[in-house]
């Protein structure tokens, strides 16, 4: 059944598949946890019911998303051992501690306070409950810090040495953690999480405004989401540009793949807008390009020379078409998000933010755009790192477990079936929750109380702790 494919290809497919599913959930929980903290703070500060209604509304969605994030995350924490054991042995002394710190400082914080956040408002009082919400939100951000540090070290390794067993060992932990691409990647990813969440919140708000433009909850959430899009999208484009310049400095081959630069351009490189990269021919077919713009963006000079993949041995080429197209999808969606933000500013200034059907339809269409952009960006950076797991140092083929293809293929098939069955159901439940607008007196997850047991009168119940 898997005869035509080798174990490494299947292991890569499995990592890409399980990771692509997983990444959706933490991106959403990072943004949603911060949004919930803001909503609860606004409620405590202003006392307006609309904020607690919105809080409870999104809290129910958060609980489903978080649950799916936890279970798909446990899978990820064992992927390194099951399918990439050689990588785990060689890079474990450096990568492992970063992940251990993620568990210790972030996962426990999130999980420890999640129960109180979801079910504890009546039990612990407002202030302690707000503290729990803040802890969960902080935990999601700390988690992003460590996992992106680990990921960035694989892209731009610094502060290491290699020991007699061929293992990477840390020489300077500060340099390992704050490796060159880490600050850029962290900012880019956290902003992406916030934008992605804002787009979902905005789409849900717009959906309900289309049916009734006077609903308080949808008005507030739509307005908040559009502020986020308008203010953060331009910052994100700037951050992305800086991230790209950093990549040019430390991973020039990835930039060559992203830009489709097979040939060197001693007198200034064009910006290739679209085309079909052909690795065998070593050129981009049907390229639509703007002369000199590539050099202008990346080197800030029209005539700056830029090296192409012809200066890189072929065995070190990334899969150019994937990197090239994933990058274009991400950037294209980024500019669409920017356009949505501008449109909302225009509507706001005209006083039609809650009336413009065109704006609402646009916002609904953009609801999933953040997730697609995040996945495309992740594909850009991870395929651009190939054919290495630790850039320039450890090849992907040398990282895999000594497993037979049928083992990896069977587990991939099992994950595929289970993920599609479980997570599509989860998404359906989330969409069902979103299909109802938040209403006055909205209850949190603790209200899903089934029928009451016989013998407990309301009076007695009121005295329970």
């Amino acid at each position, binding site marked *: 059944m898997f005869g035509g494919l080798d174990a490494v290809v299947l292991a890569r497919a499995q990592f890409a598949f399980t990771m692509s599913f997983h990444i959706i959930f933490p991106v959403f929980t990072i943004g949603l946890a911060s949004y919930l903290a803001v909503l609860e703070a606004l409620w405590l500060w202003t006392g307006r019911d609309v904020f607690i209604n919105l809080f409870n509304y999104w809290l129910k969605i958060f609980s489903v998303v978080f649950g799916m994030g936890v279970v798909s995350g446990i899978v990820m924490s064992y992927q390194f051992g099951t399918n990439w054991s050689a990588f785990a042995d060689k890079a*474990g002394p450096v990568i492992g501690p970063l992940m251990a710190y993620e568990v210790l400082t972030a996962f426990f914080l999130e999980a420890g306070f999640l*129960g109180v956040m979801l079910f504890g408002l009546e039990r612990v009082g407002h202030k302690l409950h707000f503290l729990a919400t803040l802890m969960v939100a902080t935990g999601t951000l700390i988690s992003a810090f460590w996992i992106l540090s680990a990921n960035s070290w694989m892209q731009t390794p610094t502060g290491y040495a290699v020991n007699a067993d061929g293992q990477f060992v840390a020489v300077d932990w500060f340099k390992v953690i704050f490796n060159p691409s880490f600050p850029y990647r962290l900012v880019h990813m956290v902003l992406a999480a916030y934008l992605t969440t804002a787009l979902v919140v905005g789409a849900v708000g717009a959906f309900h405004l289309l049916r009734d433009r006077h609903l308080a909850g949808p008005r507030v959430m739509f307005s908040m989401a559009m502020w986020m899009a308008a203010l953060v999208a331009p910052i994100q484009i700037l951050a992305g540009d800086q991230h790209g310049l950093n990549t040019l400095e430390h991973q020039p081959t990835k930039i060559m793949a992203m830009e489709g630069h097979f040939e060197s351009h001693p007198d200034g490189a064009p910006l290739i807008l679209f085309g079909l990269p052909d690795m065998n021919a070593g050129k981009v077919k049907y390229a639509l390009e703007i002369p000199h713009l590539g050099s202008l963006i990346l080197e800030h000079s029209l005539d700056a020379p830029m090296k192409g993949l012809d200066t890189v041995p072929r065995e070190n080429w990334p899969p150019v078409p994937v990197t090239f197209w994933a990058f274009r999808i991400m950037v294209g969606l980024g500019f669409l998000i920017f356009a949505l933000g501008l449109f909302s500013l225009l509507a706001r200034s005209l006083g039609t933010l809650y009336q413009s059907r065109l704006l609402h339809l646009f916002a609904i269409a953009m609801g999933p755009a953040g997730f697609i952009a995040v996945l495309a960006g992740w594909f850009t950076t991870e395929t651009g790192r190939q054919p290495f797991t630790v850039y320039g140092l450890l090849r992907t083929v040398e990282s895999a477990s000594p497993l037979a293809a049928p083992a990896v293929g069977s587990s991939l098939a099992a994950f595929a079936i289970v993920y599609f069955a479980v997570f599509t159901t989860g998404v359906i439940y989330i969409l069902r929750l979103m299909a109802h607008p938040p209403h006055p007196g909205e209850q949190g997850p603790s209200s899903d109380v089934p029928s009451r047991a016989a013998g407990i009168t309301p009076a007695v119940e009121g005295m329970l702790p």
Partner: protein
Amino acid sequence: MNAAADIATLWAFIIAFAVFVYVVMDGFDLGLGLLFPLFPQKTDRDVIMNSVAPVWDGNETWLVLGGGGLMAAFPLAYAVLMPAIYTPLIAMLIGLIFRGVAFEFRWRTQSERNRWDVAFAAGSWLATLAQGIALGAILQGVQVEGRHYAGGWWDWLTPFSILTGLALAAGYALLGATWLVLKTEGELRDKAYHLSWYLLFAMLGAIGVVSLATPLLHIHYAERWFAWPNIIVTAPVPLAVAGVAALLLRSLIRKQDNQPFFLSLGLFALSYAGLGISMYPYIVPQSITIWQAASPENSQLFMLVGVAVLIPLILGYTAWAYWVFRGKVQAGAGYH
């Protein structure tokens, strides 16, 4: 023994501690899943789910720490063991997915609730059996060549690993039943008491059979347990098991709700100590010791700082979360 060796031993205890906390904490909520088919009534099921809903993902975080910590502190052991238990590990992960999402999904739907109840029970069974089988597969030893696992992907399947799989199911079910004794009341609690009787004897039987089978696996285990002077240290373990079992029986007879769960944890702790006695100082039995597998000293030291500060903090706020949701669970009177 140099300084690095001492840190390796310390880390072996830390990983062992994380795995133990996982086993006892997720053990009881997996146990609830194992017992789920015996409680067909909807109200009972709601109470059972409510009793762990606020804490289950904190419990599973210890599993992530066990895996992540092993990769960080003993990367060679992680690299050899994970491919060796490949199939049970994947099965465990899939089981955990089904039961994990069931906590949330069953509240989101009326018509499909039964389906998620089945997913909760089946996922718990799959995860529990897989964990027990993985344990047996590691204990019986794995083929190693150089720095790699050298066996096949079905090597784990032996009568011994099946035995440990069933043994763990008996243990988790006992934890689940005694948890219900602690957290519920009325008919549900009485039924849990009734089940605890059977499960206690099932678990004692399981401990006995695994204890007898282990020394037959390898001469190392037999010498560890029965050779002089080791026997001075090892002999008290079975005696303590008998003592705790007697106390547990008494608490079941006297219906002291608060005791059976903690005494069951005691049985787990003793069994776990027995495992430790069997394995030490190997982390991959008979082939790789904790010193051979250890990360470089500076990796272990770097994490030790974090562990020393953070684990007490984590235990503190985890205890607080349990405290917030303390006491008996009322049907329909509180959370979820």
